[in-house]
């Protein structure tokens, strides 16, 4: 019960002070608050993610990890504070007087261009076959030529090891296969930031390793920035360069996986790791 301790942060995690850093982080949470009624999920949260970084968010259930991803995907609205992505406010627009107002659907769609998400329950479209699940958005959202999109979709299916399943219905696939298609579908939109929300939690144990391996490959071979909520500590250790430990809507501790897993500074982190490892 760490009641009175302020959240610990690395210097890099502070909101950049003008002049000290040359590069604006790709993602910056600036005093972000998320409330549902009286329940505070995120409490003046500050953290940053650099371009190309692979960040794992860990922490007990209800600590607000998934909410962070949902805010970034604009599936939820911030109650207060601002999320900055690549120097622009994610879900706000600047009014004529310079103040920030909540963005409308049009601006939100502009923000979403950079971001893709893979969900715990895959959420493939059951009314489309595998190939169309992947090509639907590139063709109709990005305006890509259909043949080009299909060619790329086949390459992506090849990458995720499902080249034989182009004409299958999602319902004919195993959970692991569905999740691979969902990963291919997200990659087809060429996001700069990929959000992974407990992507292995709904899978049978024997299917987990394959999906994690695939994500590890993607992390190593692309420059996509990844934010990953997971209970797979091995994945956090092998793939990410930074681990953020959350509790009660705050970053309790952050650092390299080696540091967090071998020498956590915070009592809450130790408790959590003891419970899950």
């Amino acid at each position: 019960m760490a009641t009175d301790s302020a959240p610990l942060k690395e210097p890099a995690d502070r909101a950049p002070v003008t002049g000290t850093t040359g590069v604006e982080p790709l993602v910056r949470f600036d005093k972000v608050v998320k409330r549902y009624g009286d329940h505070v999920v995120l409490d003046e949260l500050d953290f940053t993610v650099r371009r190309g970084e692979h960040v794992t968010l860990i922490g007990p259930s209800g600590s607000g990890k998934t909410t962070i991803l949902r805010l970034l995907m604009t599936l939820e609205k911030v109650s207060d504070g601002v999320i900055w992505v690549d120097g622009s406010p994610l879900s706000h627009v600047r009014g004529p007087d310079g103040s920030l107002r909540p963005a409308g659907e049009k601006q939100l769609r502009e923000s979403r261009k950079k971001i893709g998400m893979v969900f715990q329950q895959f959420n493939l479209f059951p009314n489309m076959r595998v190939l169309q699940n992947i090509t639907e958005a590139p063709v109709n959202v990005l305006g890509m030529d259909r043949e080009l999109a299909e060619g790329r979709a086949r390459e992506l299916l090849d990458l995720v090891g499902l080249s034989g399943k182009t004409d299958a219905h999602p319902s004919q696939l195993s959970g692991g296969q569905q999740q691979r298609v969902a990963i291919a579908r997200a990659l087809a939109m060429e996001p700069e930031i990929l959000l992974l929300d407990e992507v292995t939690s709904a899978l049978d144990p024997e299917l987990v390793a394959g999906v994690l391996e695939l994500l590890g490959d993607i992390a190593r071979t692309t420059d996509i920035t990844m934010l990953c909520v997971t209970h797979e500590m091995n994945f956090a250790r092998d793939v990410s360069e930074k681990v953020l430990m959350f509790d009660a809507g705050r970053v309790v501790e952050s650092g390299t996986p080696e540091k967090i897993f071998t020498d956590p500074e915070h009592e809450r982190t130790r408790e959590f790791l003891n419970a899950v490892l």
Partner: protein
Amino acid sequence: MSDFFSTLLDEFPQVRSGLWVTVQATVLGSLLALLLSFALGLAAGSRLLLVRGVSRTVVEFFRGTSLYIQLFWLYYAMPQLTGYELTPILCGVVAFGLNYGAYGSEVVRGAINSVPRAQYEAAVALNMTPFHRMRKVILPQAWVQMIPSFTNLLIQLLKCTPLLWLLSAADLMTVIQTIRDRTGESLTAYLTLLAVYFVLAYALTLLMNLLERTAKRRLGLHTGGKSLLKTRSAEPAPTAGGAR
């Protein structure tokens, strides 16, 4: 009894045209109802209060007033008010369409709401426009769920068409009534009507089952060979999203 059937044969052209009127009223009425179901059902989910309000009002009005009175109103009162006179069949089509459109809009609204929110979220994550989300993701999944309820409404609409007799439209009911009056064979006449409407309703059921089977197959759901002959689908509505 033989009297009735020999008259029926003699009057076969009338009977045939009566059947045609019934079919016309059913088909056109249900097409209008389908159109209104989607218009009112989609409007009910609008973000704009005004659009929702209009939809709600129309639905409550036509659900809450009697079909008989609407028919009479359209046929007898509206010409006095507006100077326009609709043919009896057209009155029927409009009244049936508005009534069953009101019921159908609730079916559309319910089916749209039953599509898991996760599907909407996946579509948002792929940056689809609200229209694109509705057309390519939500409605195709909701459609499968609408069909069994639409089948019920369609059959109810068919069974309302004898009301056209009240407007002296020459529908099947009216024609058979005339033959009954002439021969005095009430028993046979009404038994015949029961049988004919049953056959028509069953044909509609089969057609709708076929439609449901195609729609389900498009979602990759298994459809048993027997499902065509069932009067309504008994299995739980298919849901999308996860593979739980």
